[in-house]
């Protein structure tokens, strides 16, 4: 034991055999909590609007949300940094093995957790088993008020009641970028495209790219000392790195 320095131990314990392909870095120092990512995500991915009452009952539908806590007792309260929370696209995702219908599966091609809506039978086991609680369930068929029904994204499935859904890292954009690059006979360039949340972030707090290539911006940022993974101790190998604030 004495010969093991910290670095070796980390490399022994926390090396992900599936190091993943796409990843994200979220800088909590830069995040202002403006919720632009939340709005952009809802637009891009045809997420339903559930209204105030259902939101209050724990039925909000967001693939990304801004978590914020207060520390201490009033009036001596301190706000913690904003924490945009989305599916961590775990390498070993707890949601995957528990689905009886193979509705939540790991993509070999993209190294992402996929949710196959038309296979989902709604047992909601994945939602229970998700350590970050980032899955949203369609408790009803939700109405889309008049002008909003015209803005549905044709690239994304509209989900019906009884189906679980979650962040896909905007896989429709990934596929489009890959198809374009393949058609032009090249690799997808770093920063060529971004998911809706990263694109909308005015502070550039969200950076997206290939984590399996060391030269990309996202890999460089993730190497910083203040980079942490959410609930790392569970060994789920998340592909989102948070850069701690302060």
């Amino acid at each position, binding site marked *: 034991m004495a010969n093991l320095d910290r670095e070796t131990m980390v490399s022994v314990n926390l090396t992900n055999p599936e190091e993943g392909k796409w990843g994200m870095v979220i800088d909590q120092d830069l995040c202002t909590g403006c919720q632009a990512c939340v709005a952009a995500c809802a637009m891009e991915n045809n997420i339903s609007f559930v209204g105030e009452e259902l939101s209050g009952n724990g*039925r909000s539908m967001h693939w990304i949300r801004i978590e914020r806590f207060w520390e201490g007792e009033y009036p001596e309260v301190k706000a913690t940094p904003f924490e945009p929370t989305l599916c961590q696209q775990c390498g070993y995702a707890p949601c995957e*093995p*528990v689905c009886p219908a*193979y509705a939540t599966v790991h993509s070999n091609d993209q190294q992402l957790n996929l949710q196959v809506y038309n296979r989902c*039978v709604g047992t909601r086991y994945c*939602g*229970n088993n998700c350590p*970050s609680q980032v*899955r949203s369930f*369609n408790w009803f068929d939700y109405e889309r008020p008049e002008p909003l029904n015209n803005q549905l994204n044709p690239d994304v499935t509209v989900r019906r009641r009884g189906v679980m859904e979650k962040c896909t890292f905007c896989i429709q954009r990934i596929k489009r970028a890959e198809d374009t690059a393949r058609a032009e006979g090249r690799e997808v360039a770093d920063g060529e495209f971004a998911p809706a949340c990263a694109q909308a972030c005015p502070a550039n707090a969200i950076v997206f790219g290939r984590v399996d290539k060391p030269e990309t911006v996202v890999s460089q940022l993730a190497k910083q000392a203040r980079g942490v993974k959410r609930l790392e101790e569970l060994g789920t190998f998340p592909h989102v790195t948070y850069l701690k604030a302060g």
Partner: protein
Amino acid sequence: MASEKQHEEHAHGEEHLRQEHLMLDPRPRGEMNAMVMEAMHYTTWKFWVVAAVLGVVVALGLFFSWGRMIAEGLGLAGINRPSYWGIFIVNTVFWIGISHAGTFISAILRVFKAEFRRPFTRAAELMTTFGLMQAGFSIFMHMGRVWLSYWLFPYPNQRMMWPNLHSPLTWDVLAITTYLLASTMYLFLPLIPDLAMARDRTEGGWRKVAYRILALGFRGTEGEWKHLRLAMNIFAFAIIPVMFSVHTIVSWDFAAATRPGWSSTIFGPYFVVGALHSGMGAVVIVLAIVRGTMKHMKYFIRAEHFEAIGKLMLIISMTWAYFFFNDYIVQWYGGDKWTNILLHYHEAGPLGFLWFLMLAVNIVIPWAVLWNKKWRSNPWIVGTVGLLINVGMWIERYIIVPISLSINRTPFTWDLYKPGIEIPLGIGTLALFILLYMLASKFIPLVPAWEVQEGQMAHKLTKYGRETVVTVSELE
């Protein structure tokens, strides 16, 4: 003079033994068969009033509410994030627990040749089948898209679909369907001689046709009995591991998950014992009601039976307490931050009183009441204790499922669970269980007449000198 008095006492003792034990109080076969048949046929207007009320409750509470929920969405229930599972799963586990009593009493006591089991094996086996039906209803209600539930069954198909055998829910599907099939066959096999008896004693009409078909032409020849005994023996031994596996697998739904309070390695045996705890409680409730309401049942079901089941209940309560504290203390000792928050939330959270109520009715009351032979011989006292144990075991599952789900590793989502349409649906399953049981008691002989007669033939009072000794011969 002295010897005369002794003789008198002796005769009195023998009389007393006969009064106390069904096995020592034989009646002629024809008479007993007639009693069983009369218990089945005799109904009062009260029976039909209760059945009609239950029918309305089933129609409104179960089928109408369920239809509404299918049409509008699962949001009518109270489940939310983070409590994705609620009373539906609580009821599923509860009903599977109830279903364990049938097998426990019937198979385990049959294998161990416990003689007191004879008059009520069928009453317990019926609970298994009908309890599993309610568990099935509850689990299907729980599904977001129940109309696709056939996707969970493994059969070759053209959809490129196969259930995920890594998922504890798939194990559940396999375990519960196995148990349902096995327990239904196990209910049916000992029923064949009684169905044949009913067939021979029915004059005509639809009952005659039904009994003739169901009795499979059983005439009671030596060869038929030999085959029947062999089949019952195989099933009695084979169904015991199935019973243990079912509730262990149900517990793995929780134990295999990565959640504080759920990932506990002792959940398997803890759940099995919990199932027996609630199941035995349910058996005594049913026996107390059957004894009080059905004709001739006071002959078949006596204080000795409640006394014997009361002892079992006491032992199971002690075993449950052992597993409960083992589970609790090891989880607490683990020192995991989230688990400790959760354990504290169990006792001191907004529903902490439930935790104390559970301990009171599952441990304190059975221990305080059932040690006393006089009390545990009283059907209504034991029945009440059984009812309380069932309340306690339901609360235990409620604490494990929605209350534990309220706390997770993402404090931002912590939320309380408030039931919605689960309540009418749960009452509907309870009503359906009672209704099915009531109707079944009027269609099949609730007392296995052949089993009682066999036991009575095997038991003899023999005198060794002055001592009267009960001897049991091996018939099988």
